[in-house]
Structure formats: C-alpha cells, structure tokens
C-alpha cells in the first residue's frame, strides 16, 4: 500500500476547513436552541430544553408573517414562472443582436441591489395609485401585492436562467417534425416544447418559492405595514437576541436537510448502477426507494415533535436558578463584609468587557455575563458592583 504524500492531503484538508466555515455557524446556532440560557449561547451550558420551540408556537406575529410569506410565495411562483418561461423561449428564438440586448435587460434585476428594486416598486405603484386617485385600501398600496411585484422582478430572472439552461438542449427538429405531421404551431408548443420543459418548470418553481420566502432586501420596502416571515424574524433579531430564533433555524435546517436527503436518495435510486444492484433484491429495492426514505424521515420528525412537546426541563432550570440564587446570596454576603474595600466582588465576576458587544437588543440578559453567576441571569434586579 502506498502512503499518500503530505501535499496530496492539502485539498482534503482545505475542503474540510471550508465546510467547517460553511456548517460551523449553523451547528452552533442549532445547539443554542436547546440551551435553557435566555441568551443564545453554547457555554455555559445550563439545561437541555425544548421550551424555545414552545415559545415559537405561541408567537402570533411570526405565524401570521409565515402565512403572508406562503401566500406571497405562491403568488410569486404564479407570476414569475410564466414570465421566466416566456423570456427564455423568446431569447432562444430571436436573432443574436436582439438576444444580447434582451439578455442584458433580463439579467439586470439580479444584479441591481434588492433595496433599489424594492424602492422603485414602491414608488412606481404609489405614483400610479395617485394618478388614479385610488383609495388607500386599494392594491396599489397593499403590501402583499407590492411584494409580489417587487419579488417577481428578479425571481423571474432566476427562473429564466433555469429555463434557459434547459432550452439550450432542446432539439428544434422535434417541433419541426410535429409541424410536418400537421400539428398547428400552438399544438407543437403545448405537446412538444412544454413537456420538454416540465422538469425545469418543477425546479424553477421550487427555486422561486424558496427565493421568495427568504427575501428580505426588497420585501422590507414593499411590504409596507404588513409583515412576512423574514421581516418578523429580522425585527426579532434586531430587537433582542433570543434562543427561540435559533429554534426557528433548527426547524428550517431540518426541513432543508430532509428535502436534500430525499432529493439525493431519489437521484441515487434512479442511477443505472443502483438499478443493477437492486434488480434481484426486492427488500433492498423497497428499503432504498425514496418513498420509504421519506416515510422514515417523516416518522423521525414526528418523534422529534412529540419529544419536544413532552420534554420537561423545569426541574433542571429550577435547580440552575437555585444555584444562581445561592451564589448571588454568597456574593452579597461577601460584599457586605468587604464593603470598605469596595472591590470587584469575587473572582467569579467577570470584568465588564466591552458593553457594546451583545447589546443589540434590550432583552439580551447580559453583555458581560459569560458565566452563569452574573447577577443579570437571575432576571431579578440585583445590586450592581460596589
């Protein structure tokens, strides 16, 4: 066996580091969702808890934002997919000069900052509304409609790119054959080109929906007084860091992973090599079917949900609180003894550090408490220093 030379290990090492950068922050965030500390952090670890998920379920703002987001997502898909398809077909049929010009216009919304798209959409419809003397309740001023328009502007371009890469592989002689055999051009379009584009329509729909769901820069302007999942999330993050945001992340990451796993299993299942392997092994065939995988993952999710609902960490959190209280008591006693010296109490009290650190929101319990013993963690007003 030949030993690999050390230089051959560099790419692997580099990839490992790279994926650590990619996944590290997400993993840390997931861990913080299960720590009972009221500030999202990994250490000190207080108690394993699932309470943050419960807090989410009762967050009406977030849920109504999610409802709006789903509605907007569906609206965006309904408008952006036909536009993207039409744009890709048009590009494939016009001459090279016009194609270059059109392509530049079509691609522009991807490059233009989302902020600019949001602003211009808002102003444009506001102007049109004023022009028609439309009442304030009309759709010209409605956040949902404006957001759909704003998002379609660039999401149509994403879907166009998906369609374009598919249509480049389209064999135009197929359409010609259909025409020769007496199909009308419309029939040729519906029966030949559209079915060929079907897979791309599927992936463009998923892409458009997800892009709509996670958009912030445009939405924050066009949503006006309404809200979406992302804008609610953003105001939550800006006005106070809270582990329930990590809990949102856990849910989204779980959904993404499940989707990715099923997608990958589907791809593997339909490869030629695997078809040979399972041809004579029905058990394996069933076990690796993407449907089976989906059922297993669904069962796991259900189990996780049940676990989250039933897990009770109150004993542990009460204990931690008690410990803190005892320590607090001890500190105070120590202080009253040391009063004349007026020193920083006990070595367990960390220095105050840069106060600007985590202050982001008012509810962040303690910018300087990197240990559980800081008085702020009690949630009660405790005497400060001296």
């Amino acid at each position, binding site marked *: 066996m030949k030993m690999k030379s050390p230089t051959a290990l560099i790419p692997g090492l580099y990839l490992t580091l790279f994926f650590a950068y*990619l996944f590290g*922050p997400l993993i840390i965030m997931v861990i913080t969702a299960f720590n009972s500390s009221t500030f999202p952090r990994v250490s000190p670890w207080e108690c394993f808890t699932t309470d943050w998920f419960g807090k989410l379920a009762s967050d009406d703002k977030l849920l109504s934002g999610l409802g709006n987001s789903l509605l907007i997502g569906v609206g965006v898909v309904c408008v952006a997919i036909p536009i993207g398809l039409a744009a890709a077909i048009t590009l494939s049929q016009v001459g090279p000069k016009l194609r270059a010009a059109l392509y530049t216009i079509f691609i522009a919304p991807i490059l233009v900052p989302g902020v600019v798209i949001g602003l211009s959409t808002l102003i444009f419809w506001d102007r049109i509304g004023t022009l028609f003397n439309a009442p304030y309740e009309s759709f010209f001023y409605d956040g949902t409609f404006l957001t759909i328009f704003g998002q379609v502007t660039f999401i149509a371009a994403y879907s166009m790119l998906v369609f374009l890469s598919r249509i480049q592989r389209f064999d135009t002689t197929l359409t010609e054959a259909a025409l020769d055999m007496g199909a009308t051009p419309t029939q040729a379009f519906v029966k030949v080109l559209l079915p060929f584009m079907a897979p791309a329509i599927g992936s463009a729909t998923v892409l458009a929906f997800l892009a709509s769901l996670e958009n912030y*820069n445009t939405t924050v302007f066009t949503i006006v007084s309404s809200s979406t999942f992302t804008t609610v999330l953003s105001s939550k993050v800006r006005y106070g*860091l809270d582990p329930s945001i990590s809990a949102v992340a856990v849910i989204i990451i779980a959904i993404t992973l499940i989707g990715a796993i099923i*997608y990958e299993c589907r791809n593997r299942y339909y490869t030629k090599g695997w078809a040979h392997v399972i041809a004579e092994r029905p058990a394996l065939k069933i076990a690796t079917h993407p449907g089976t995988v989906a059922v297993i993952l669904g069962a796991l999710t259900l189990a996780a949900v049940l676990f989250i609902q039933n897990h009770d960490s109150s004993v542990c959190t009460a204990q931690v609180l008690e410990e803190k209280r005892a320590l607090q008591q001890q500190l105070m006693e120590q202080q009253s003894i040391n009063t004349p010296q007026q020193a920083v109490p006990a070595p367990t009290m960390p220095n105050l550090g840069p106060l*600007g650190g985590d202050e982001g929101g008012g509810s962040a319990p303690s910018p300087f408490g990197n240990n559980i013993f800081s008085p702020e963690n009690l949630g009660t007003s405790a005497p400060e220093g001296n």
Partner: protein
Amino acid sequence: MRDLFYDLVRRNGMAVSIYLMLAVSLWVFILIILPQLTMLDYSFRFNLPPAKIGGPEDVYTLEQYRYFFQGSGASDGLNTLDIGILFKTLLAAVFVTVFDLIICYPVAFVLAKSSTGAKARLLVLALIVPYWINEILRAFAFRILFGATGVINETGMGLGLWDTPIDFIRQDVALYAGLAYAYILLMIFPLYNAIESLDRNQIEAARDMGANWWQVHAKVVIPYAKPGIASGMTMVFMLTSGALAAPQILGGPSNLWFTQLVYQWFNSGGNWPRGSAYAMVLLIVCIALVLLVMRLFKVSIGEIKQ
C-alpha cells in the same frame, strides 16, 4: 418589432406569441424599466406632502443629490459622513468579493477537477444546503458566534489567546465574515461551471511541459475561467454592496452600510425623494465600478450567467 412578432407567430402560433410578447413586455416595462424611471424621476424632486404633489411647487431639482455631496449646510463643505459611508461600503464590498474569490477558487477547482459522480454531487448539495437557510438566520448565527460571550471569544479566552472578550461586532469582523458567508455560493458556481468545462488534457500538457502548480493556474486555468471569475465577482460585489439584512444585524452601532442610509431616509427620515437619490447614487456607482473592472479585464456582460 412587427417583423419580430410575425416571426414569433410563424413559429409558435398566435396564442403562444401573444403570451410570449405579453409576459416579456409586462416584465420588462411594468416591472423593470418603468419603476426604475419613476425612481429616477422621483430623485429629482422636492420632498412634498401628498397634497402638493403635482402642484406649482412640484418642480425638478438637484437638491437631493446636492445633499448627498454637500450635506445640510448651505456652505460648500462636503458631506463627508455620507460620502465616507459610500466609500467604506464599496471598499468593504471589494474586500468581501476578493476574500470570497480566494477561498472559493480552490474549492471550485477541487470540485470541478478532482471529484467525480456521486461524490461531486454530494459536495454540491452540501454547498447548496446552507444557502437555503434564511439570510436573517445566517446573520444571526454569526451574531452568536462573534458575540462577547460567543464561541469564538470563549475559545480564544479558554486557550489564553486573549483575556477580555474582543468586540468583533464593533470591529465589523462579524459583518465581513457574515457577508462573505452569505454569498459564497454565488462565487463558487460560476467558477465551478467555468473550470469544469476546461479540458483536463490542457492541464496535463502544461504539467508535461514543466509548469509547476502555480504556473498551471496562472497561465492555463485562470485565463480560461476568466468569464466565470468575472461573473462570480460581479454578483458577489453587487449583492454585498446592496446587502441590507447582514449590516442591520451584524453591523457595529456606529458603522453604517450605505443601504442603511437609504433605508433610513425612507422609513424614519420620511424623505422618499432623498432615499431615491441615494439609491440611484448606489446603483450608478456600483454599475460604473463593475463596468470599469470588466473593461480592465476584457470581459463582456453577456458572459455573465449563473
């Protein structure tokens, strides 16, 4: 235009052609061009209460742009604050773009040239998965990571590298790391697509003729992948300079991103024309910068794709 329509009808039939023309013109005019023009128009107006819009006072003015350059003072002093923010934003965006290029190029190269089949597909999937996590949540993750009690500070202090928490937020380290993270995918894929289509034999040939690894990249791979590099850099640069979520969440309290100025004029400032003018400034400066760099590296915008 008429010829174009007849050509479309001949190929697709009447109904489909009408759909194509309608959908494309709706997109181009109603969603792209007219809103931009309205915003441009708006940026040349005074900030008037709704009742006065269209009245005698509603005339064109350069006031909003003047404000960007000179500030509120009537004197000829420069608005160093806002201009400084613009420069800082652009500089930071360039930095983030270059950083992304440097860390993504090796990954794209390894993916495109060394991995095959299932392994490559799995790696690509691993790249995409973090991208589907909401932008806000990704920024939040960096906030946790870099906070005063975050993992980085805890680890650093635990190892004795430093003894008071370093304020990564105020120093904008968290912001740059978060921004670079947010747009990694937009750098990797154009690079990957460009490098993947390079014939492996070209690399072999260069090696046979005595090129070392550095020369292979500098003389063969990078020139070949130039369009991919250009589109990746353009995309990351435009999105970074136009980012709003990450600066709002990760930006230090005293450091503003230029988009935050636009946001302020629109929301708390209540001055839409000025917000529009600022947005136009951002758009024009960014586009000019991208076109300039493309001219320098001799790539055309038509080569940009995902």
